[in-house]
């Protein structure tokens, strides 16, 4: 039996709406796909999962006609399954390791996870297991996937947990970065609600480092702290014209659209303005999201400007395909050198130079080299810069004693995720640099385990 293919919205239609692109398996498809699983003795797929979801077990429950049981099985290890089922790079994790991948058609584990999570969510109640209360209080800084996971795991262990989040909504990149058409915000809201049901308190609009500091939280009786503040500082190109009107960081653009709902302006108050022709600089998931969002806001022509070739595009394959189907134009081996504005200071054109690939660099990828004299310009109304991000400095500069690594991220022990401040742990993008949702969740899990050990050891009597 072949692998089931998840239905998607038609490209011509979906490129003009914010509805979800992938529509999810039908119950029949899910059953057919579950039936393909060999329930292997040697569980390769599980080894490929950063949070070790019991993949064959949940698939067997699904196969046996118990989707609620399947959902509960996943939630033993993963508190955010509807999110992971949608945005995890399964092709390079569990599905890559699946025994059937050798023949090219691994089980659609992501699709099944999504199906199970959505099914369970539609059934009221869910599976909240009250844990025996322990006399420990934990503070979680940042409500991204790392922080949410750490919070959920600690709550399941009986900790009294409070999350402090600087934005007005929980979710981190899931909320402000990844667009509605890939990850509906209702789903993020639903999974956050689940974590609250576990007893986790959520305090939004608290910027740790400013509103309250890490030492103060320790003084206020939190015995242990997890820092999951992400990599939220946008990098820019440092080319002339970068502060012209119409030049956005991907963070600003996506925050306006996703978190602030600018795509529904003026029903919502936050505006966004991109014009008819948009150039997105970069080639990762963030760039694809920005490009596809631009299209949905009504842009006529959207370009991905990337300095290497198609092979090196860092975005997920599926998202590149989706982008192409929707009509995004790829300008590869092209690097911006200057942004040109009109008298009003608004972007008018982008000047680029052609690149060719030279010798491999330290990352093993062939280094792009500019072709002298090959500069050319093309008209654009806006430029979105999506070339990566670094550690946000606010918490770091206001937390004395917190050791950083040479790249400016928090130095945390790879095994325990302990930082240089006793009782304070850190994980996710603020430790590794921009990575993935599931890697951040894995870090939250690992840290939670250590935080429990730490508290039990340090405060045996509570």
């Amino acid at each position: 039996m072949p692998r089931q293919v998840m239905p998607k919205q038609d490209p011509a239609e979906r490129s003009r709406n914010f509805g979800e692109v992938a529509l999810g398996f039908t119950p029949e498809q899910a059953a057919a796909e579950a039936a393909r699983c060999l329930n292997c003795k040697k569980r390769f797929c599980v080894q490929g999962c950063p949070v070790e979801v019991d993949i064959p077990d949940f698939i067997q429950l699904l196969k046996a006609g118990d989707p609620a049981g399947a959902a509960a099985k996943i939630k033993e290890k993963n508190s955010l399954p509807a999110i992971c089922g949608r945005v995890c790079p399964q092709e390079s994790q569990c599905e890559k390791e699946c025994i059937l991948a050798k023949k090219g058609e691994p089980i659609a584990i992501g699709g099944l996870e999504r199906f199970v999570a959505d099914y369970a969510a539609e059934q009221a109640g869910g599976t909240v297991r009250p844990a025996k209360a322990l006399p420990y209080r934990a503070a979680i800084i940042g409500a991204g996937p790392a922080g949410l996971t750490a919070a959920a795991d600690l709550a399941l262990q009986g900790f009294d947990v409070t999350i402090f989040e600087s934005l007005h909504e929980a979710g981190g990149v899931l909320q402000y970065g990844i667009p509605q058409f890939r990850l509906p915000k209702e789903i993020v809201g639903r999974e956050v609600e689940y974590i609250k049901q576990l007893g986790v308190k959520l305090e939004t609009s608290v910027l740790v480092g400013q509103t309250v500091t890490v030492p103060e939280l320790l003084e206020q009786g939190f015995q242990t702290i997890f820092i999951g503040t992400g990599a939220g500082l946008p990098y820019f190109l440092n080319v002339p014209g970068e502060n012209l009107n119409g030049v956005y960081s991907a963070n600003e653009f996506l925050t306006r659209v996703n978190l602030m709902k600018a795509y529904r302006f003026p029903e919502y108050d936050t505006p966004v303005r991109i014009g008819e022709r948009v150039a997105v600089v970069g080639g990762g998931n963030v760039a694809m999201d920005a490009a596809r969002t631009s299209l949905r806001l009504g842009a006529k022509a959207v370009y991905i400007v990337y300095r290497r070739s198609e092979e090196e595009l860092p975005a997920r394959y599926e998202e590149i395909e989706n982008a192409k189907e929707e009509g995004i134009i790829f300008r590869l081996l092209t690097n911006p050198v200057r942004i040109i504005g009109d008298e009003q200071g608004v972007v008018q054109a982008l000047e680029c130079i052609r690149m060719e690939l030279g010798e491999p660099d330290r990352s093993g990828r062939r280094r792009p080299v500019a072709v002298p004299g090959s500069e050319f310009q093309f008209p654009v109304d806006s430029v979105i810069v999506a070339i990566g991000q670094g550690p946000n400095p606010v918490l770091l500069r206001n937390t004395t004693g917190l050791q950083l690594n040479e790249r400016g991220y928090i130095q945390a022990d790879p095994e325990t995720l302990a930082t240089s401040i006793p009782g304070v742990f850190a994980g996710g993008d603020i430790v590794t640099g921009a990575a993935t949702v599931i890697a951040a969740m894995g870090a939250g899990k690992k840290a939670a385990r250590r935080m429990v050990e730490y508290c039990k050891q340090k405060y045996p009597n509570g």
Partner: protein
Amino acid sequence: MEIVAKDCLAPRIVRLVVKAPRIAAKAQPGHFVVVRLNDRAERIPLTIADFDRAAGTITLIIQEVGKSTAMINAMEPGQSFADVLGPLGTPYPIEKVGTVVGVAGGLGAAPLYPKVKALYEAGNRVIVILGAQRRELLILMEELRAVSHELIVATDDGSYGEHGLVTVPLRRVLEREKVDEVIAIGPVPMMDACCRITRELNVKTVVSLNAVMVDGTGMCGGCRVTVGGQSKFCCVDGPAFDGLQVDFAELRQRQRYYNAQEREAYQAHQHGMEGCRCRAK
């Protein structure tokens, strides 16, 4: 985040005292907050014009310029903001430097006040130049008088104090005595004009920039301003900067980017809106 008191300072300018104990406990001169009125509202940066740690309150002074500020100014005591995030930004360094001249244009008096108050209390000689288009738009005059050794008032139309722009008394004071620092806060053209004078006379000048912001936490990069040829994030690196280094032309341009959409929203909003009491004036 409940509003506990409200009064009108001038037409379309309202003072709100807001219950925000955690922010009040941390507020320093130079800090600001980002507020959101309701679930559909924008995130709006506003200076903490004063704070009372004991009462757990902060004071905001808001001028109605568009839809969001109009809606905020129509709020009454007992109502609450959906969110108030802060304190944000880098506090203004309060040191004893000698003689300080504070120049406020219009609403700039609000961010200027906590700074000159602290500088006055720190033992500096403080001269304040307060300007507005006309008499009824002068705000915080008595408050500023109480924390300065000399207060000079100027109005564009001559309806109160000196007739003319604040730059005239600024130049006069700088030529009259040795001044160690100037703080100029107000509309961009006013700050730009002040800096032209202080640059010529070589006096250290600090300005407070009101770049368009989204998060206010260094995450979006939308608030970038060019200072000394380098891009800075107004929300975390500022909002106070060395005025002699600021690219004001760029700041003005960036502030205008959303004008058309803002006008549209404001006009749509004004239909059938009650508005604040002060609008009648």
